[in-house]
């Protein structure tokens, strides 16, 4: 890993007190939310947290590295189903999911190991899929990863004896709460932040800005791309697991192209490569959709949430193509590249990827 020493340096010199302070404030807020808020409000906050995990982890590959992947829902599905099957009450497994191997059918895990297993399964899938798929660039990569969603959906739909197919898994134990979700938000933010601000992050950004130049200074593109993709998939798997145990209901159609679109919108709104930007956009969009949903129902205008989101996206892309914060972080402008639109001299952005016909 190119970023080894740089990352350790940052870890040693990172303001640990600030981090601990933030964690304490966060814990106080969650305790407050758990005591005073209604279940609906807590669910909205839970969704916001899961969306933060998704958007921040996607920023790592899509924003920083310039790998335009739409595959997050595929990894969410894998993580969600893995975790759901692991936590499912053992008594009901034998009748509802007859295809499970013996050792899974008889065991019943708690949330943390199930979530970790979900993340690992998603990461392994990303490792396998990444080898062929990451050789593609730009549009082709985007559509190939869209294909991953379709492929995982079709597989889950057809493995009835393990996944109950299109009916989906209902009646999952409601294990996710704000503590678990925000614990994972903190882990996601910590890991991606440290990596972004290490030399690893710079190497990833150099791949985004100019692949040829980056290769010529010795950046190991293939390995780093795969790393960014797998890391994102791990957190997507975790988010899928948390989602399944918040909604307590899982079908292959829960995660599709619209989900991919919503996560990508968060990344684009926040700015390509801005973790805080992605997190803020995730919060904003979660709140907008949860507030708009009752309105949608009241005036019988289904599709309103997506209309609002799509319009917002188009408007931002037209008037502020670099997103809210560009590639920087609002709190640490010094440390990161300034939030200006990508330079015009880089071929990657002007059109025509090196491997495409012209």
């Amino acid at each position, binding site marked *: 890993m190119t970023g080894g020493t740089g990352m350790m340096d940052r870890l040693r010199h990172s303001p640990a007190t600030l981090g601990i302070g933030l964690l304490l404030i966060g814990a106080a807020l969650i305790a407050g939310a758990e005591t005073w808020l209604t279940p609906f409000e807590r669910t909205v906050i839970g969704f916001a947290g899961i969306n933060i995990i998704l958007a921040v982890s996607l920023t790592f590959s899509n924003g920083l590295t310039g790998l335009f992947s739409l595959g997050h829902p595929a990894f969410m599905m894998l993580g969600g189903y893995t975790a759901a099957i692991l936590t499912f009450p053992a008594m009901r497994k034998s009748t509802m999911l007859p295809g499970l191997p013996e050792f899974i059918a008889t065991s019943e895990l708690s949330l943390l190991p199930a979530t970790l297993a979900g993340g690992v399964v998603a990461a392994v899938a990303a490792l396998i899929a990444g080898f062929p798929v990451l050789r593609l660039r730009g*549009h082709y990569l985007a559509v190939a990863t869209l294909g991953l969603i379709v492929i995982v959906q079709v597989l889950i739909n057809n493995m009835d004896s393990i996944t109950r197919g299109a009916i989906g898994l209902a009646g999952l134990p409601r294990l996710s709460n704000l503590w678990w979700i925000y614990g994972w938000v903190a882990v996601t933010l910590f890991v991606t932040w440290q990596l972004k601000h290490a030399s690893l992050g710079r190497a990833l950004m150099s791949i985004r800005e100019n692949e040829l130049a980056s290769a010529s200074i010795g950046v190991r593109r293939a390995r780093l791309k795969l790393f960014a993709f797998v890391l994102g998939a791990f957190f997507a798997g975790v988010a899928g697991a948390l989602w399944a145990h918040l909604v307590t209901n899982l079908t292959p159609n829960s995660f599709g192209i619209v989900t991919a679109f919503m996560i990508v919108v968060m990344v684009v709104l926040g700015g390509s490569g801005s973790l805080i930007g992605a997190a803020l956009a995730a919060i904003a969009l979660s709140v907008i959709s949860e507030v708009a949903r009752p309105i949608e129902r009241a005036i019988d205008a289904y599709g309103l949430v997506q209309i609002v989101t799509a319009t917002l996206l188009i408007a931002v892309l037209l008037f502020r193509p670099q997103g809210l914060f560009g590639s920087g972080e609002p709190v640490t402008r010094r440390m990161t590249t300034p939030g200006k639109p990508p330079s015009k001299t880089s071929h990657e952005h002007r059109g025509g990827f090196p491997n495409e016909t012209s």
Partner: protein
Amino acid sequence: MSAYVLQQLINGLVLGSMYALVAVGFSMIYSIVRLINFAHGDVAMIGAFSTFLVFAAAGLPLWVIVPATLAVGAAVAAVIEFLVFRPQRQAPQVNGFITSLGVSILIQNVGILLLSAQPRSVRLPGLLRTNHDFFGARVTTLDILIVAATLISLLVLTLFVKRTRLGIAMRATSENVSAAQLMGIPVNRVITAAFAVGGSLAGLAGLMWGGRYGQIDPLMGFVPGLKAFVAAVIGGVGSLAGAALGGYLLGMAEIMIVGMLPSEYGSYRDAFVFGLLILVLLVMPNGLLGKPAEERA
């Protein structure tokens, strides 16, 4: 050859024709502005709705409906280009791509809002639904018309691109936008025209799709649009002949998966289509008829 196999071949030919029409438009737009237009399939949906909800309901005769649908497709695509893609021409390439995904989702949901997500059944005049016996296989007049109209459209399009001034301007623009501009080609107008031509083909495909399957809904365009993209990539993006060939290959392959393999594999159809895409991109990144890659610094 048994009648069953022949029937499958015919079905594949018909489905492939519709994919080919959409794929050719896709490829044309891509070769000129390097944009994968997710909204292209939704233009086909708008074409289908205007055909069956407006023109057919108004009792227009068929020889008016077809050109009217072509015009609607062209107008919708040109308006989208003018409103959202033109202002972004200098922006990073992925922006256009994300925007098109946004436009697609916007159109689908406005469609659901105005027309409801419920599929509507539509009926063509009985004349088109007449069955003919073709060596034991069943062919409707509509099937014949779909294949014929596709082939004629492809022929006209080829002549248009090769012979007319506008077509030559399009090819020049797809080679190099700034050079074309320096030669006095009104690049903006040429790009809008390319969108319009692609849109009219998509509109025609939507008309065929609705007529063939007997129902239309606001989400009907997305998946066929995506598959048409897969077809365009298989054939070689940027090559019109390649896109048409890819469309026919994909249509055939899809029907064969459903019709020839044991039925439990039929539901794996879409996984197969995208698996094929990934495979083709890896083995032949330029598709069957695409130009060889060129490494630029």
